[in-house]
């Protein structure tokens, strides 16, 4: 058994964020209080998640537990479920969210009209709450509801920056997301009809019965395909990723960081949970979904980078790179082994730490270049905002998979995981190609920002990065190196988490 305090943490963390979101509109407008409230709430949840992680991995404690939401246990009421993996992910989500907010504090203030800042905070809180709920939930319909909250909040967070471009991007994002959630909803209905349950474990039992009796195989396959496709659209798997660069490239930096680093990951983790907890890996393999996911992941890894190569706008470039990175995660999921899913989860964490850093860095750099985002406009900005420059360099190294940086750890574990399966050659080839392509667009960016140019910014006096910016960047960099150097205990933890998922 686990102690009382830790037992209530999953519920408490969702609840805290929800309450923070609800209270925020009541706070005085045009002040900094809402932002501070969000930051403190997220920090509190991060601390709680860290404690939960500690409690769950403490020797002698049970590794995972269920938390009934209300007076009625499992098949009758809703339920949350927490294990090491969920705890790690919620910790990472909160930390990355907090750093994205603090790192972009000043650019948020510039981009968002004062009247909207309060609403931005509400949306951030709701987004965090929905991410936490997606992480912890053990019920498919709850997952759907929170996916919808996530969708609306994510689109609104794109549109929070005033301007025609963002409205268009948000609308595009919204339409694609709605297609996705429609498919998910149809699939949930089919699954409910076939199993009579909405809770993941009970569904799993019913599906195993169906599979052993070979009944209802077509509906089962179709529902799996629909739910995967729906969530894949939301998590920007390549052929469905056309909305992503618009949405992530035009919004304010904090929004881009949050969307790229975290929102996609919430959906991907939901897919992982559905694969692992609802269907089970054997059924997935039997229905051939693993191969499909694997191939799509491969394609995404290459095509995301190819698109990124053609971008001239640094934020769009980073956004397309997210598409490639999502491909890595799906590659891991498509391996359909515990090791593969653990590697995918590690990459989720790595990417959740690196991508916000890259966006924050890009924001800092384009700020230093006078709000220009074209690649050539960033020339020499390293010397104006060194912290941002360091962030971009570290992020680039990480994305290229240089040993010692976060990205290498996940690439290594992905490769090692793929050695167990028959597709190792494909996985290796794709990893290698994607790394080279990553380098081909990140290194020129790094070169540009490090290219000295005396006259380019003469007319523009760039603001110095604030202390908060430096601090967030420092934490980001530390996290990056930490993940690169100490990935083994983390990977072990994740593997334990996946085993009890």
């Amino acid at each position: 058994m686990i102690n009382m305090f830790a037992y209530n943490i999953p519920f408490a963390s969702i609840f805290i964020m929800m309450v923070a979101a609800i209270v925020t509109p009541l706070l005085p407008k045009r002040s900094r209080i809402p932002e501070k409230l969000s930051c403190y709430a997220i920090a509190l949840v991060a601390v709680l998640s860290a404690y939960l992680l500690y409690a769950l991995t403490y020797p002698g404690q049970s590794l995972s537990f269920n938390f009934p939401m209300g007076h009625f246990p499992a098949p009758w009421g809703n339920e949350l479920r927490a294990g090491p993996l969920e705890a790690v992910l919620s910790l990472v989500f909160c930390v990355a969210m907090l750093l994205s907010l603090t790192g972009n504090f000043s650019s948020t203030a510039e981009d968002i009209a004062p009247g909207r800042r309060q609403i931005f905070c509400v949306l951030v809180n709701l987004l965090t709450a929905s991410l936490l709920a997606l992480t912890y939930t053990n019920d498919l319909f709850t997952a759907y509801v929170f996916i919808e909250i996530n969708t609306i909040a994510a689109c609104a967070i794109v549109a929070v920056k005033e301007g025609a471009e963002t409205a268009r991007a948000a609308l595009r994002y919204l339409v694609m997301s709605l297609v996705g959630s429609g498919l998910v909803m149809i699939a949930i209905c089919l699954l409910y009809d076939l199993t009579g349950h909405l809770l993941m474990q009970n569904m799993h039992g019913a599906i195993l019965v169906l599979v052993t009796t070979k009944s209802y195989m077509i509906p089962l396959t179709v529902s799996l395909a629909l739910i995967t496709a729906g969530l894949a659209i939301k998590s920007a798997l390549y052929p469905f990723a056309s909305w992503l660069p618009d949405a992530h490239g035009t919004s304010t930096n904090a929004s881009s960081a949050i969307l790229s680093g975290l929102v996609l990951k919430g959906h991907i983790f939901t897919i992982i949970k559905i694969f692992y907890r609802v269907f089970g890996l054997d059924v997935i393999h039997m229905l051939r979904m693993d191969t499909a996911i694997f191939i799509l992941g491969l394609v995404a890894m290459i095509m995301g980078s190819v698109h990124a190569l053609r971008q001239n706008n640094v934020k769009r470039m980073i956004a397309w790179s997210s598409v490639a990175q999502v491909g890595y995660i799906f590659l891991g999921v498509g391996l359909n082994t515990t090791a593969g899913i653990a590697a995918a989860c590690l990459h989720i964490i790595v990417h959740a730490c690196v991508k916000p850093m890259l966006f924050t860095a890009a924001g800092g750099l384009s700020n230093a270049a006078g709000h220009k985002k074209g690649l050539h406009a960033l020339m020499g900005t390293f010397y104006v905002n060194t912290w941002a420059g360091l962030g971009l360099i570290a992020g680039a190294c990480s994305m290229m998979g240089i040993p010692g940086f976060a990205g290498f750890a996940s690439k290594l574990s992905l490769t090692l995981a793929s050695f167990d399966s028959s597709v190792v050659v494909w996985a290796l080839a794709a990893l290698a190609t994607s790394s080279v392509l990553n380098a081909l667009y990140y290194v020129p960016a790094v070169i540009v920002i490090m290219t000295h140019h005396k006259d380019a910014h003469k007319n523009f006096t760039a603001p110095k990065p604030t202390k908060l910016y430096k601090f967030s960047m420092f934490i980001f960099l530390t996290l990056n190196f930490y993940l690169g150097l100490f990935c083994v205990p983390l990977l072990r933890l994740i593997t334990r988490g996946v085993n009890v998922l």
Partner: protein
Amino acid sequence: MLEKLLLNHYEAAAVILSGIGLTNLLLQRNLIKKIIGLNIMDTAVYLFLAAKGYVEGRAAPILIENGSGGWLTSSALYVNPVPAGLVLTGIVVSVSVTAFALALTLKLYESYGTLNIDEALLKMTEEQEQLEAVIEEADEEVLS
């Protein structure tokens, strides 16, 4: 297959409707129609779900008095209440989404004067080009 479809006529209709809705959502070029498509799809899915909860010859899930101050609680009397609950939640979600999407559409129209997302893109790209040309000129002036 056809007689099975005739047996499951609610589901079949729901599926056709959701197909139409999805197609509208994906391929209509007019945003208002896209949003109507979204609504059609949502209601179709709810229809599907509610049809799955129906059981022939049973009453709505509101307890009936048995005449002696008690309540009839036999599960053979009432239809499945779960789909109704889920659909209630779903309807709220779809209203919220519709309102949000319409608000965004109005925003888009305010900026671009069109309800077509591709036309908006085209306009934006042209503008972007002019903008970039200006920026480039300025850059070159600074550099030279």
